[in-house]
Structure formats: structure tokens, C-alpha cells
């Protein structure tokens, strides 16, 4: 009796083990099943309104079954996207064939050997007719290391009625000081981004560049020899402008926690009549009209101009952003991935992406596309802005530079031209020499 019960008991775990083994085998077979067909390329994408998934489908269809492109979603924040990709690539993840990369992180990826090489002829082809800032953004040490996909830039958005009431002429360049004066007089707000996040670095870099300065002078120098320009006269001038914005009545509520979305909300609500922001705010406004939260007349009141200048006479250097495509260095199908990238960035797909998702093209010719012009009346302003745009510091240590700026320039109200730029430079140097925490 006892032996019988023991044998029953002993059999049960074995039965479980059998089930588990069968399940494992089934998953293993399923995995083999996907491999036996045409190769599948996985494209790690940043969240959008479904445009990249649609383009992946189109390019898959165009190959007539030679390969398939599958998209995998990355986190929302650019910094979190980088964290995930870096961790995977540091572990030689071969599942990353294509990745949508935010341009400031490209030097770090290239320097670490995470990006597959792009042959000379392909490099020439994918940068032909591409707006200058996007070419710069996809280049590291003189080589094209990513394929330019779409290029973003910030415009100055304004309510035409308020600008008119303030007597502000926005047909030509306008300075931050003029904006502050107009906004204060009209009792309205300038929606700028002051949250301790990448958006803050975008603002600081654009104002420093518009003052004629450069945050990092020698971005490709070894970390302990990097020369910085943020603490020169132009950096201090930029700090002065930011100090004026933050301490004026036009700074508006919650500047210290305001991101791009919060700015767009303020602008839609009419609480801010001026705003510096990416072009997504326009389709967002159209969506709000459809949802009934914004009137058509308010949307018709939207005006746009080039990014504000620091000093009259010195043209502004607007922010540059967007996405470039990197080919994973450990991909099992780098040739196919390169081919897929070329398909993804075709003029047709860039125009589609611009019109449907509001993400401006990297190719200049797309801005003449009738559909694009119809959907985005500000297309030519965006192109002009991209031609002038200044990239954020292109260094493999971008995260250190950006995090330090966020640490020393936040909250914007505490920025002091005499101390903030110098302190920023000191901390960046110490952090790059690994003598400071971040």
C-alpha cells in the first residue's frame, strides 16, 4: 500500500515535467517556425501615431516576400529609449535589425560600435537632398552612420489676434525680449518647456546656439580633454535671456514642470498666446477641433514663425530633433536591414509620415509635395527652420552633458548668468573626468 502510494506520488512530478517539456518544445518549434520562412527584421520604433508600423507594412509588401519588417515599441521618453537600446546592444542583441534613434544619442551608439557600417554609395544616396541639420545629425566623425528619416524642429507659434493687438510684427525675425514685452503687455504667457527633462536641454541649447554660442566645442575629443563653450560670453547671454523669460510675468504657471504637451494644452486653452514647440501641435489642434475641445476659429488664429532670436540682427538657431535609422551591429541580416531602411525613408513614405503623423520629412523635396503643403501650411517655415537648426552637442557623452544642463538650469527661475554657465561647465568637466556623481 505504502509503496503504491509512493509510486503514485513519484509519478506526478514526472507527469508535470513531461507537460513542461512538451510546452517548451512547442515554443521552441514555434520559434523555429518563424525562422524558416522569409527573414523577419525587427525595427525598434519610438511611439508615434501608427505611421512607422504602416510604413513597415508597406515596405514588407514591396519586397514581395523576401523579408518581413516587424515593429517593436520602445518607451515614450527619448532617454528611456536610449537606456533600453544601449542595454540590449551592450549584450550583443542580434534581434535589433533597425532602430529609430534620437539624433543626440547617435555619436554614443557609433562610438560604442552598436551601429552597422553604412557603405559609401548608400551613404551618398540616403543623404542626397536631405536637409543639412539632418545630415549633420546622422554623421559621426565625418561618416554617415545612420539613415536620416524625419527631421524635427521647433517653431514659434502664436495667436495672430494677440500678436496683432500687441503690435508685434512676426513676418520677420523676432527676439525673446520683444516676445516677453508683448506677452506681458497682453497679460498672456509664453509657453516654453522648463521640466527637468530632455525638453529643457533642447531649450537651453537653442538659446545658447541662437546667441552664437556652442555648448561643447570639441565634441569628439577624449572625455577628459573636451573643451566647453557654455561658460563664454554667449553662454552667459543665453542665461540672461532664459532668466528674463523665467522671471517675467509671461513665464506662466508651472514652468518648472512644463513639457511639450503641457505647453500645447496651455496654447490650445488660450492661456498662452506664444509658444515654442514642435510641429505636432498643429495636427493636435486639428484633432482638438474634431473632438470639440477647440473651436475652428481658434485654430485659424494659429500663427507660426521662425524660432525667436536672442539679439536682433543675429539669426536664431532653432532646435533640431527627429529620428534617424540605425542598423544594429549584431543584426543577422544587415544587408536586408539596410535595404529596408532605404525603403522606409523613401520620399513617398516621408510624405505619408509627415501628413498622417505630423512628423516633418528629412528630404527637402517632400516640402513641395502638394499633399504636405495642404496638410501643413507651415511646411516651408519648417524647412527654413531645419536649414538653420543647430543640433544638440554631438558627443558620445551626450547623456552626461544633457543631465548636467538639466541639473544646473532647473528650475529656470534660478538661472543666473554670472554663475549658472560656469557651474554647468565645471560639473560637465568633473563628470566627464568621473570625479562627480550625476
Amino acid at each position, binding site marked *: 500500500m505504502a509503496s503504491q502510494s509512493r509510486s503514485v506520488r513519484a509519478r506526478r512530478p514526472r507527469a508535470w515535467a513531461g507537460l513542461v517539456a512538451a510546452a517548451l518544445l512547442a515554443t521552441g518549434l514555434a520559434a523555429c517556425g518563424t525562422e524558416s520562412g522569409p527573414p523577419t527584421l525587427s525595427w525598434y520604433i519610438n511611439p508615434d501615431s501608427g505611421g512607422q508600423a504602416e510604413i513597415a507594412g508597406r515596405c514588407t509588401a514591396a519586397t514581395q516576400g523576401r523579408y518581413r519588417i516587424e515593429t517593436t515599441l520602445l518607451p515614450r521618453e527619448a*532617454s528611456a529609449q536610449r*537606456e533600453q537600446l*544601449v*542595454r540590449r546592444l*551592450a549584450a550583443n542583441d542580434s534581434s535589433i535589425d533597425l532602430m529609430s534613434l534620437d539624433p543626440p544619442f547617435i555619436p*554614443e551608439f557609433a*562610438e*560604442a560600435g*552598436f551601429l552597422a557600417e553604412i557603405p559609401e554609395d548608400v551613404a551618398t544616396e540616403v543623404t542626397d537632398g536631405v536637409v543639412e541639420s539632418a545630415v549633420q545629425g546622422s554623421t559621426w566623425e565625418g561618416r554617415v552612420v545612420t539613415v536620416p528619416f524625419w527631421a524635427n524642429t521647433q517653431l514659434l507659434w502664436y495667436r495672430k489676434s494677440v500678436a496683432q493687438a500687441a503690435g508685434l510684427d512676426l513676418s520677420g525675425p523676432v527676439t525673446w525680449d520683444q516676445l516677453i514685452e508683448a506677452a506681458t503687455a497682453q497679460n498672456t504667457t509664453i509657453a516654453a518647456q522648463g*521640466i*527637468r*527633462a530632455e525638453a529643457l536641454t533642447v531649450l537651453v541649447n537653442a538659446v545658447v546656439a541662437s546667441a552664437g554660442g556652442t555648448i561643447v566645442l570639441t565634441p569628439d575629443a577624449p572625455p577628459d580633454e573636451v573643451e566647453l563653450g557654455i561658460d563664454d560670453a554667449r553662454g552667459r547671454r543665453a542665461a540672461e535671456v532664459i532668466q528674463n523669460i523665467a522671471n517675467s510675468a509671461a513665464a506662466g*504657471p*508651472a514652468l*518648472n*514642470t512644463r513639457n511639450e504637451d*503641457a505647453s500645447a*494644452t496651455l496654447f490650445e486653452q488660450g492661456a498662452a498666446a506664444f509658444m515654442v514647440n514642435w510641429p505636432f501641435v498643429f495636427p493636435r489642434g486639428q484633432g482638438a477641433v474634431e473632438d470639440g475641445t477647440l473651436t475652428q476659429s481658434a485654430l485659424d488664429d494659429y500663427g507660426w514663425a521662425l524660432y525667436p532670436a536672442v539679439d536682433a540682427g543675429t539669426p536664431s538657431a532653432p532646435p533640431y530633433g527627429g529620428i534617424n535609422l540605425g542598423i544594429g551591429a549584431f543584426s543577422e541580416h544587415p544587408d536586408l536591414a539596410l535595404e529596408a531602411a532605404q525603403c522606409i525613408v523613401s520620399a513617398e513614405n516621408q510624405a505619408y509620415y509627415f501628413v498622417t503623423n505630423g512628423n516633418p520629412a528629412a528630404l527637402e523635396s517632400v516640402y513641395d509635395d502638394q499633399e504636405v503643403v495642404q496638410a501643413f501650411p507651415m511646411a516651408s517655415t519648417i524647412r527654413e527652420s531645419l536649414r538653420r537648426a543647430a543640433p544638440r552637442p554631438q558627443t*558620445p557623452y551626450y*547623456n*552626461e552633458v544633457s*543631465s548636467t544642463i538639466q541639473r544646473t538650469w*532647473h*528650475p529656470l527661475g534660478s538661472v543666473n548668468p554670472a554663475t549658472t554657465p560656469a557651474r554647468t561647465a565645471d560639473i560637465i568637466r568633473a563628470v566627464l573626468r*568621473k*570625479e*562627480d*556623481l*550625476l
Partner: protein
Amino acid sequence: MSSTTLAPGEQERARTASGRRPGLTDRAKAERRLGWMLAGPAFAVMLLVTAYPILQAVYESLFDFRLTDPDNRSFTGLTNYWVILTDWIWWRSLLVTLLITVVTVAVELVLGFGLALVMHRALTTLRPIIRTAILIPYAIITVVSAFAWQYAFALDTGFVNPWLNLGAFNWFGSFSPSIVVICLSEIWKTTPFISLLLLAGLAQVSEDLQEAAKVDGATWWERLRKVTIPNMKAAIMVALLFRTLDAFRVFDNIFIMTNGANGTESVSFLAYRQTISRLEIGLGSAVSVLLFLCVVLISALFIKGFKVDLSQARGEK
């Protein structure tokens, strides 16, 4: 890992009765062996999943090692620790962490005790419902509860400002209000945990003692102070210890609500920033090791300093 099924007092008596103090009986030896065999696998797994990463972190912390630049990894001894301990950010993060720990644990202890009393005294039919209701916050993932609290206090979507007539007050705009919201969220979420531990303690307090005190004319307050609390001291200390260790590792709420802005970085957040964002594995590991040492210190303080006996809380004494 008790070596015998006898309670410690009886063990003592058994030893003195047999008169052979150092030597163990065959039976005791067999039981000890059985104990090791039963607990051994769990012990081995614990070593594997906790000791290995800790040792790995200690090892990595002695190197200058950047994840994207593994070729230039070099041994730097205790340099990383020197960098951390001479940096004001470390000390500020430590103070912020201690502040959050002390505030949340103190408030949670009082609230949790109140809730435990409610649960203890509730009618048997109501008890399961109350217990479930009280446990709901604890069942919610911290990240989700952090978002919920952030949205509640946010300027654009929040309902707290209209309720309190605060207008455009920005809760996440400076240090103090940010810490208040972070602490509130922590307290809301983990009070149920502490109250459950305290409820177990309350259940151990003998009804006879309560009755006797009542007969002697003790008021409710006197019974609470002189009978209930002294009898559940062990449970209180264990609850405090667990919650303190937990609170000291605070990360999620800060990450979601302020992302370390306004000087609200905790020690865990500092470790995240060096290891995951900055990819400085060496420096980040050193921060983690220091965090680990703090946790060990807190445990030692509780166990030696306050004489917390973990076995007592399990009702073995």
C-alpha cells in the same frame, strides 16, 4: 532555521535534565540534519540570487567601467567610493532618503495601528470585507499609484488644487510640496502592509490579560498602553524593521513624480542614474554597495539596538 521542534524554553529544560550540555543527543543530531536538508535548497537558492549579485556589485565597484566602453575597463580600487563620499549629492540623497523613511514609517505606524485595531475589533462577518478594502492600495503596483497621485496633484489634470482652492500652486515645482506628495503616496500604499503585520501582533495579545485589566478597572487607553502595546512589542518592531528597509529603497514614486527634480533624488535613484542612465557600471555599483551597507546598518541597529527577535514575531516564544 530551527534545529528542533521543541520551543527554546523546553530545549533548555531538556538540556539541563540530560546533563550533557555541549553534546547533542542522536535524536537532536538527526533533527538538525533534517533541518539542514529541508532548509538547505532554499538556502542555496538564496545564496545564488542574493549573494551572487551582491558580490558581483562589490567586484564591479572597484573598476572604472563604462558599459559602452568595455575595452577601457580598469581597476581603480576604492576611487569610486571616494568620488561618491566626497560628493554633496550623495549626502543630500541620503538625507532625503532618511527624511522620507522617517516621515513615512512614523505616519504609517500610527495609521496602520489604527487600522489594525479596526480590523481586530470588527465583527467577524465584516472582517474579511474590511481587510480586503484596506489591502487594495497595497495590491496596486507602485508605478501605477505614483501616476495616480501625480495626476491628482498635477496642475492641468489634477483635482486637488480645485478642492483645496490652491489655484495655480505647483506641487512638483519645489522641494517641500514634492516631498509631501511623494510621502503621501508612499503612506497610502504601504500602510496596509504595516497594519497587517500589526494585526497579527494584536491577535497574539491574550484575551485573558485584557479581561483581567478590565476587571481591575483599567480604561481603554490604559489597557492599550499597559497591556496591548507591551505584549505586541515584537510585532511592532518587526513591522518597523521591514517597512524601514522598504522605505529606504524608495524609487518608483520619485522616478514618476519628479524624476529627481528639485533635489528629491533618493539613494536608489542615484544608483539608477549612475548605472542605467550614465552607464558607469563601476560608479553605480559602488552607490549600490553603499546602499546595501546602509540597509545592513539599519537591520543591525534594529536587531541589536532594539533587540528585535524575529522568531518572537512568528509566535515561537
